[in-house]
């Protein structure tokens, strides 16, 4: 099925890219400006979904799928779950931004600078969307990830992967211990 994709180059790439990027930015802004936490969460979900679509555009369908199933589907549901149990009325009366906004802006500026630097150094003297810039690997994305993780020779992230899952287990146990006084 790879030839089919290469033989049919994606259409209107800039259009979709800018559209999705705009959705993401608007969503992101809404996340921090909405006073109602549920609205924020919904905006965040929109952002995450747009991000998943961007992954698709990068020929990374597996990552896109995982993004949807884990972030938009799983984590955000839990988010909403918790938010609903918070008294919204009280939250709306509280001040939206506190003193840390300066720090926030500084961090955002640093991050933005980093992005710009990386972008300009890697794409110096080139157009933004050169034809065929993305070289579509012959291997499927899913298997590529599997190889990176588990392959006997190329699998360099096996340890990190396992350690991460252990960390998650510890987090789960910790949450149970903290939440339940008597098990």
């Amino acid at each position, binding site marked *: 099925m790879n030839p089919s994709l290469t033989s049919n180059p994606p259409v209107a790439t800039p259009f979709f890219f800018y559209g999705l990027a705009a959705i993401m930015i608007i969503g992101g802004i809404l996340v921090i400006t909405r006073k109602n936490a549920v609205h924020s969460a919904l905006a965040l979900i929109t952002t995450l979904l747009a991000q998943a679509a961007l992954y698709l555009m990068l020929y990374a369908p597996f990552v896109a799928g995982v993004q949807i199933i884990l972030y938009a589907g799983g984590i955000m549901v839990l988010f909403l779950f918790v938010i*609903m*149990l918070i*008294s919204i*009325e*009280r939250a709306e009366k509280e001040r939206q931004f506190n003193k840390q906004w300066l720090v926030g802006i500084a961090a955002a500026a640093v991050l933005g600078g980093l992005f710009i630097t990386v972008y300009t150094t890697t794409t110096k003297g080139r157009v933004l969307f050169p034809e065929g810039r993305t070289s579509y690997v012959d291997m499927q994305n899913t298997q590529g990830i599997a190889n990176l993780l588990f392959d006997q020779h190329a699998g360099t992230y096996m340890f990190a992967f396992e350690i991460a899952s252990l960390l998650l287990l510890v987090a789960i146990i910790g949450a149970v211990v903290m939440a339940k006084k008597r098990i």
Partner: protein
Amino acid sequence: MTDPRSLSPLDLETPDKTFLDANELVINMGPQHPATHGVLRVILRLDGEKVLGLECVIGYLHRGVEKIAENRTYTMFNPYVDRMDYVAAVSNGLGYCEAVEKLLSVEAPPRAQYIRVILTELNRIASHQLWLGTHALDIGAITPLFYTFRDREEILKIFEKYCGARLTTHAFRIGGLQYEAYDGFESDVRNFVSFVKPKIDEYEELLTTNRIWLERTKGVGVISGKDAIALGVTGPVLRASGVKWDIRKAQPYANYKNFDFEIPTGENGDTYDRYIVRMMEMRQSLRIIEQAVAGIPEGPIMAKVPKVMKPPVGEVYHSIEAPKGELGYFIVSDGSTQPYRVRVRPPSFVNLQALDVMCRDQLVADVIAVIGTLDIVLGEVDR
């Protein structure tokens, strides 16, 4: 117009001001709610889904039956009792007629007694069938409802043929019966018995061994025999808690002492036991009906009762085993044609009181199951 009831403060121990506090939730169930079997309002105090306590608000169906009785003659009041527990009208009528008969010191003739027993037991089956259908519906099984209604129809047909009414039958008169059994009454009843026996098995097939049914009913709404007695709970609910007490055996009325039947009891006092007890009771009722049909004597159907009834001064408490428990009538006569005071001891009313005890620390879904298993009829609770 403000309904004074709506202004009544919820008398809950810790009034919860904030909406949606994670700890406690007050939910108002009813009076219009699919699972309250009428206009019952239950105010639930929840911790998540766990019930911390509940309060029943009743009286939406109050018609002042006891007050009406004081303004009617003994005979005129007879149809009113049918409207209390309208799914077991025959039982209500039996209790009332027997109480007045006792006040008059008359006894219905044997033939009338037999027919009374047949009709009352048929009514017990009908009541239990209705209970089963609605109870199963509460727990989410929708199909038994239609099966039980299909079979209950046969009982109602017999009632209709006998006295012209299906629900509020007014089948009995003080002193005996108004109507002789119609031609084919006995064969109809026999046919019904043989018809319904496999049907009861059919209900059980759907539910008794169903895993979900077991999980939903076992250990739910447990009430110990001791608590049940203290709360005055009677009927199948009491028997399911292991108390082998049935007025038909303990203090036989009508001519129940002539019949051979058993009192099914449960052990754990949970919803499942109550279900099983009622299923068994239906079978026992069929046994009684079979014996009664076989033994109907010939003879008069009405005792000698004056046209204008003036029971001598005095008072009497008479109770019968209605499908829902002990149905008592406390009648005070002042010697006139109208009762001075009629007090009805409604089984549903008293049984409903146990709801709070039975639902503590259970989940919301169990409250529904317990309301269903108590087999309340709001017409009787509120009278």
